[in-house]
């Protein structure tokens, strides 16, 4: 049920031109395709001081920085015109990309490995890598073209074998929280493909830069990020079959990246929902990965009869009549094996 979701973690991509590849933080939505050209940065233990000797202009002007004694990282991004979709607001894929970007930058700023895996020295010695198994994103207000989004991210322990990365998104102009996200990661042995506990040695290296007291993007009890997604049985109410990965969907190891799965899930949402609602929440459980020659079916099931309890959360969901909820399955067209399971919640657009 776990999915080795970050292709770079499965196989090292051959380095081209002798460049040091860049880095992904644990809990990254998607750890692929990164580039790497950071002169002077080499794999180094997680010390805040272990940075490039000569940060580039880009890094100096990067609007991101470690906060609170290095326990979290915050960066601002402006929404670009091509990241905006049919609603004139940023797409959920854009948001997911930005979450990844800030995760990468966080890892890089605390000195994790720059090969695309966010591993520490000990992890590399032991052949351990991070894999993600769940991603949960809630968006309360989508930013528009030209808006600046400030994202804060941090990671911390999650049980004995896991870690989590959380994000909070704010509109820089008024400080309003416009979204939250969380992801769960586990450590796996690259060779045996077995899960591994986080040993004390690794813990010290990895979590030195994480809050010691738990800090959750979703602190409320029984929040949606914890809800299970059940196995779905046929027939689906809606589907889109024969989806095909494009070159741009692939990372260096020729696996499809995360954000593409989000796009595929949306493909089988009926048009009238897309026209009248916007995506409020998406939860994805990763199971298998797919590659360029795979063909994928996207299935959508209406999820009914849910007691939508908000538990006094400050981010209360709107009334039930204004929401639609779906369960999703992405699977291989041929074998029917599950790639991902998902849940989406949509709120009515105020038009």
């Amino acid at each position, binding site marked *: 049920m776990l999915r080795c979701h970050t292709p770079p973690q499965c196989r090292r991509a051959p380095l081209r031109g002798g460049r040091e590849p860049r880095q992904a933080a644990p809990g990254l939505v998607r750890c692929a395709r990164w*580039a790497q050209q950071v002169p002077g940065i080499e794999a180094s233990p997680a010390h805040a001081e272990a940075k490039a000797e000569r940060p580039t*202009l880009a890094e100096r002007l990067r609007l991101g920085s470690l906060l609170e004694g290095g326990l979290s990282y915050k960066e601002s991004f402006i929404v670009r015109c*091509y990241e905006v979709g049919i609603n004139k607001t940023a797409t959920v894929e854009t948001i997911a990309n930005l979450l990844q970007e800030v995760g990468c930058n966080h890892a890089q700023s605390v000195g994790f490995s720059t090969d695309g895996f966010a591993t520490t020295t000990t992890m590399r010695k032991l052949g351990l890598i991070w894999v993600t198994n769940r991603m949960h994103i809630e968006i309360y207000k989508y930013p528009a073209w030209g808006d600046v989004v400030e994202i804060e991210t941090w990671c911390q322990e999650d049980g004995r074998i896991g870690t989590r990365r959380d994000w909070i998104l704010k509109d820089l102009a008024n400080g309003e929280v416009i979204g939250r996200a969380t992801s769960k990661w586990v450590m796996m042995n690259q060779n045996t493909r077995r899960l591994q506990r986080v040993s004390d040695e690794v813990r010290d290296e990895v979590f030195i830069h994480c809050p010691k007291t738990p800090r959750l993007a979703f602190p409320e009890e029984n929040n949606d990020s914890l809800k299970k997604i059940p196995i779905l049985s046929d027939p689906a109410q809606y589907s889109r079959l024969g989806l095909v990965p494009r070159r741009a969907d692939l990372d*260096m190891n020729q696996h499809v990246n995360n*954000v593409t799965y989000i796009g595929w899930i949306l493909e089988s949402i009926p048009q009238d929902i897309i026209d009248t609602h916007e995506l409020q929440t998406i939860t994805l459980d990763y199971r298998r990965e797919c590659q360029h020659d795979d063909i994928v079916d996207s299935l959508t099931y209406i999820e009914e009869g849910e007691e939508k309890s908000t538990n006094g959360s400050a981010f209360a969901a709107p009334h039930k009549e204004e929401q639609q909820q779906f369960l999703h399955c992405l699977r291989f067209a041929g074998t029917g094996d599950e790639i991902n399971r998902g849940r989406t919640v949509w709120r009515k657009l105020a038009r």
Partner: protein
Amino acid sequence: MGVSIAASAFFPGSPAPAPVAPKNALGERPDSLDVRGVAAKPGSSSGTLRAGKTRAHAAVPKMNGGKSTVADGEHETVPSSVPRTFYNQLPDWSMLLAAITTIFLAAEKQWTLLDWKPKRPDMLSETFGFGRIIHDGFMFRQNFSIRSYEIGADRTASIETLMNHLQETALNHVKTAGLLGDGFGSTPEMSKRDLFWVVSQMQAIVERYPCWGDTVEVDTWVGAHGKNGMRRDWHLRDSMTGHTILKATSKWVMMNKLTRKLARIPDEVRTEIEPYFFERTAIVDEDNRKLPKFPEDQSATAAKYMRTGLTPRWADLDINQHVNNVKYIGWILESAPISILENHELASIVLDYKRECGRDSVLQSHTTVHTDCSSESGETTLHCEHLLSLESGPTIVKARTMWRPKGTKAQETVASSSL
């Protein structure tokens, strides 16, 4: 003034709250058109108007009348062959001093201009990516840092990423000049008449590809194209070194939204845009060879490839639910064999846009690969012809690409402003 706020942007981790960026501010400058006597010279070739449905995305160029309230002196005259000592050699504290000094200079310059209005310092604008108008009001410049998800499988920014930045800069140019009408493809006068710009051709030459974390500086400007068209040019450089990354030019025609027919440029629109026409070309030797009818070359050295069943996803669509122009490039490259992509990099591309497509289209992509003669170093360059069409037949885009082996040095261009 905003100086102290701007300075805090350079002190990472400073406890001061980050400066507030205004949302979608339309250009604050007056819409006074300072006709500077630069008549738009019609280009000698008027022949690239295309009938049929092509789709505009990046919009009209419009520039605000004349006055540029920007401290851009430090950018314009440094030749790229000389490393910028400012940034490359000073230790940290000097960098900060330099930043602060520049901000003061910018502020000072603003104070002295007659039509100065309170606005964010330009350094800050740039940092937040808004860009600014330069070169006496004729060009627009913006910086982007390359994000991790914009990198392709070979760890450099993909051609799509670069084209996306071109699009973004074009729109920001129009917006900053206060000439953004409804949607992304029209000036106010055009919106009133249901007209919009449609791209008919795009050419780009790539000299080098940036990597994650690099900052690219994009300059863009507009000019006339024929009697009834417009062109927009771009020049991308590495912000740090000044080396050219990409040069591009695009040709645009005006179309009526309702009839979907080509339209003449109305006088009111000419009044809006002609003062900004700037006769400079990004690409000196334009690739004006006609793209061949497809398939044409039956020679034995040509290898043909195809990929079918391509469909637009939601994220491919713009606010009019048409497929964004830049996405076509991805589809075109879908049918290029992986061996090309692994060993070569795209050196140039010419795209002819014929028709738009929407959500329900199903496309197929064809590529014909020609291996050119080897260069003196023994490596082969390739060129390909591409066709993207609906499965039902009609052509969406035709393209020609040239490829060089990875690691080959492209023809370097001195990236001075006297291009």
